[in-house]
């Protein structure tokens, strides 16, 4: 049916600087993803890098999705937004500030508030993985466009 194994998602730049430290969970995840491209290495000195990936912000929030007949929350929706941009050596935007969102739903029970806080953590981690994958596709596409 035409499917083939995905080739390396080569990026258009040999070296990349990321504005998130390698010892943070986010920084380590981004570095692992960049390593799979086979084309790009991470450098810690921004001045040396062909391109700079800037994580502009990660916003998290939750909204009430449904209520019980007694006005208590039955389901929450969690939403996470990742904003980033990619700059070239001269500081020109290769990818202008881009915002991507993911959301997850979970059932809430006020009598389980401690456990539900940890469920939020699980879902936020899942969304973060998802958003980083989407960001990688955009980084790879930026190479094709330019």
């Amino acid at each position, binding site marked *: 049916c035409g499917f083939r194994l*995905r080739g390396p998602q080569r990026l258009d730049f040999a070296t990349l600087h990321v504005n998130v430290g390698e010892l943070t969970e986010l920084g380590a995840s981004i570095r692992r993803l960049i390593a799979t491209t086979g084309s790009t290495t991470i450098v810690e000195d921004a001045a040396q890098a062909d391109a700079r990936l800037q994580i502009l912000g990660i916003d998290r929030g939750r909204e009430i999705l449904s*209520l*019980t007949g007694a006005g208590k929350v039955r389901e929450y929706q969690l939403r996470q937004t990742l*904003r980033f941009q990619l700059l070239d050596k001269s500081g020109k935007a290769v990818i202008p500030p881009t915002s991507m969102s993911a959301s997850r739903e979970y059932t809430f029970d006020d009598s389980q*508030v*401690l456990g539900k806080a940890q469920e939020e953590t699980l879902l936020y981690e899942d969304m973060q993985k998802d958003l980083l994958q989407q960001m990688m*596709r*955009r980084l790879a*596409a930026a190479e094709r466009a330019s």
Partner: protein
Amino acid sequence: ALAAGLPPLLVSPDLVRDGRGASTSRPAAALQPAPAKPVPATQPVPAVRAPSASGATGGSGAAVTPAPSPGPVADRAPVPQPVATPDPSLAAGDTLIKAQRILGTRSVELVADGDAELQRDDTVLTADRVTYREPVDEAVAEGNVVLRAGQDTITGPKATLVIGESTGEFETPSYTLTRDRTPTVAGETNRKVSGSGNADVLRLEGENQYRLENATWSTCQATDPDWYIKARELELDYDREVGTAHGGSIVFQDVPIFWMPWAEFPLSGQRQSGLLPPTFGSSNKTGADLAVPYYWNIAPNYDATITPRLMSRRGMQLGGEFRYLGETYRGESRVEWMAKDNVTGEERTLASIQHQQRITPNLYGSLDFNSVSDDSYFEDLSSRISLASQVHLLRQGSLSYSSGSWWSASALVQSYQTLNPDPDSITATPYRRVPQLLFNAYRPDLPGGLVFDLDAEYVRFAHPDKIYAEADRLTAYPQMSLPLQGAAWFLTPKAGFHASSYEIDRPAADAGKPDSISRNVPILSIDSGLFFERDTSWFGTNFVQTLEPRLFYLRVPERDQRDIPLFDTTLYTQSFAEIFSENRYSGGDRIGDANDLTAAVTTRLIDPETGAERLRALVGQRYYFSDQEVGLFEGQELIQAGGRTDVLAGLGGKLTQHVSVDSYLQYDTGEGQTERFNATMRYQPAYAKALNVSYRYGRNVIGYGGELGLEDLDVSGQWPIGRGWYGVGRVTRSLKENRVTEAIGGLEYDGGCWAFRVAVHRFAIERDDVSQAIYVQLELNDLAGIGSNPLSLLTRSVPGYGKINASSADRVFGVD
């Protein structure tokens, strides 16, 4: 030495320096700073119309440059002029004067008459007649005066200005002052905000500082603005971007609607500072509800808001909010106080403190304390659903230390105030964590690509109610994984050892059970996936379609955990995140036994140009090789969960350019029934034009009083209905309980530089009780909203809602 130090002055046509009527000695552009001793012109200066052919005149070479004709003085609100375009050949700091006739004495006083124009840097002053006194750098302009500086325009019949200092005075001017609004979020597009109006007198008091008498100010562009601020004295400070009105009022459609003896207001639409207009609304709980906030700007980094609030049913409430920001700390405190509620006859109070502090570069502390006087506080006194639905109010203090390298630690003390306004539905108080200590070590950089992770926790669970067990729990969970990843695959084998020990103080009823329990569980997992892709085309659009199978095997041996009470543990909601997690329980009191394989396939449609994801579909299932033995409670139904093999499926994204869907299905193949089904469809053909339909079904979702089952139908939307009017609404109907749990209806009007909104909101708070509120708001663009604000309600309740009076730069529509 009168003119010493002044910048070069270029005059066009220049003064006559000899008897022939035109300067031929040297071009004006070459004139050097005026000599220390004034050199008077050799002759009384005749009115000279310089020949345009003369190359000896002004630097621009154009001897007679018709001044741009200023707008008629009668039309006092100037049409925003383009940015002043000074003569490009003019050097920085030089002054150029052009007119039909120039009279006077260089270095003393020049009179430029007829289409007079004075330029320096980005300042252009035009008038019928300009008198310029070079020694004091002063220009007196008369007749059709137009001053353009940067993006600002001031017009009037007469002005006296000191050009270099940006000081001076306009008589009966009209003005338009424009600034770029600095984006609050990095990467947001800039937009311009213009304030305009007129005054009896406008004084320029240096760059970005204006003081006006008997003045108006508005963000409306029209000559006859729909609304404006009118003030006896008005200060516009474009350094702080704050306007201050003394003896002012807000006039809407020629009617004064709000009087203010003193008020600050934002000049560039930044909402954090400035004018706080009254809010009013009405609800069945409070009656008519009027709040008049008073904003007190104590210091640049401290402010307070004091809000008297009058509720016709309940009486007077006093609220206060205090915010502060320092180099190493920030915080916000809030109190509300009612001496006596006329309905309950009691004193009612609220206190809330949030404080964050950086103690050292690596050590952070935070405090979050919330308290109300009684269980019905929010139900009775707030019409906001996010507040009214609150059950637990957090009270916690925490310290966290990040070493900046591979480890971090934190300490937390946490308890909750639990509100139980409804005696038919009592929520238990959660356990207090006094304290919880966490230690995390993370090394993603070990030899061979190994990743080491250690989570360790000590926690003391305490409970105010003595029928609950209390305990000390100590947990250590070291894990080693080897994430292997290629472009088209990943494989992550992982092994961990979860060790915990409990010291439990049991209530009398559980006397027979052990007080010391230790539980050690090895956890093994292998996560793996492949990525395939192909080029495809749907409805004439090219996409890259991916196919991503994923397999997750989990092996956790069974441990008897029936003697461990549940302190912080609950079952996760089943979802795609949950079926790939190591434990089906959150918290540490249950480690679910597992010998199962989860398989899932995801397919996505990706825009090949940008890499943006347009649509995704997922399907997944878990296969159990053996029955599950570990349940939350002894002998409860979840023990049989091992027999179930739920299929999970999801579809989300954009079906077409205007139609998007999000859906989720969970189907129990063992019982042959649907566990969960959610489907949401949105049609959004334009900004502020959206329709949503949503259906939610959950067979085992726990509802009111422990009843099972959820079935909701939800319809919402925002739609233009013509002539600037928009309708907005939402209805949520519980099909299970056969009642409307939430309803919103609203109307909005976009008046160009203002908007009007009215919204009615009704939602269930108890089985036989609802909260009903009406919100009325008049929003003056880039100034303030008067009346209670339904915007957050509409944004939350109506997916795709667009603020109708948002400037086009702020409109985010169809983001991906």
